[in-house]
């Protein structure tokens, strides 16, 4: 386990708020592979801010 936190990433509850979803819904989307969270040093899942930004972009602007 390294001591570094993942930079520019947010916990699931905060990510859900940003997306306008319930946490439960976001956990379901993670289970469906619609999001790819990383695991923090304490085992907590976090989502990269860049992935969140991509998830709320209009389809034509997505990478």
């Amino acid at each position, binding site marked *: 386990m390294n001591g570094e936190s993942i930079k520019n990433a947010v916990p699931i509850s905060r990510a859900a708020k940003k997306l306008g979803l319930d946490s439960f819904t976001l956990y379901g989307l993670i289970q469906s592979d619609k999001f790819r969270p990383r695991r923090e040093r*304490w085992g907590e899942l976090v989502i990269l801010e860049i992935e969140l930004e991509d998830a709320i972009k209009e*389809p034509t602007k997505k990478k």
Partner: protein
Amino acid sequence: MLKRDGESCKYSVPDFEGKLTRSEFDSYNEAFETIKDELAAITQIKADLKELNVNPGVFAIPNDQFAEQTLETKHSERGDLNLRWDIRSLLLKLTCTDVFLCERMTSEGKQFAVIERYGNESLYAKANGNINVLLVSNDAQQAVQDYAARADHTLHFMASNMVATAQRVVWQRVASQNPSRVIRAISERCSKAIGDAQDEIQAQILERKLSNRQNQSIGQTL
């Protein structure tokens, strides 16, 4: 009174048999504050799912409240392959999401789907559409049961991550001490929220099966 690191162990917290010291208690409260909203959500969802588990047939019956209401699912980028579904019943209502059992007629008979609809304010919905098909089945009751099992799995996933979140808060606060008892206390509280409802559901399902069996044997006797 038992002491740890010179502090008396005298603070009780829900669902944990041991007693915590003042500093453990403070850590517990700080960590719990971080996850309390999600724990409340888990408890509520678990209670709502109980009815789906115990009485899936009730949700397979069309609810007049949703008569004439439809959802449209898109199956191509150009939007030229859309399917229209009639809403049959509401399975779960969350703050920003409704989950419905829907049906549509196909050349091979009725098809059922569990579909979630996100609120219009959701940024995710604005970018990705507000409809998401969770599962499809040719049996309404089976669809309800499959959804309940899937939702239960999601709740366990959510609870285990909540414990990890609490762990992060506790370690950040007391990096120099061993916070294992605090983590255990939080973990047991989260497990209780998931486990209690599960036990109750199993008991009700068993009770229903026994009651059905009794009714069947009474029917045979008559």
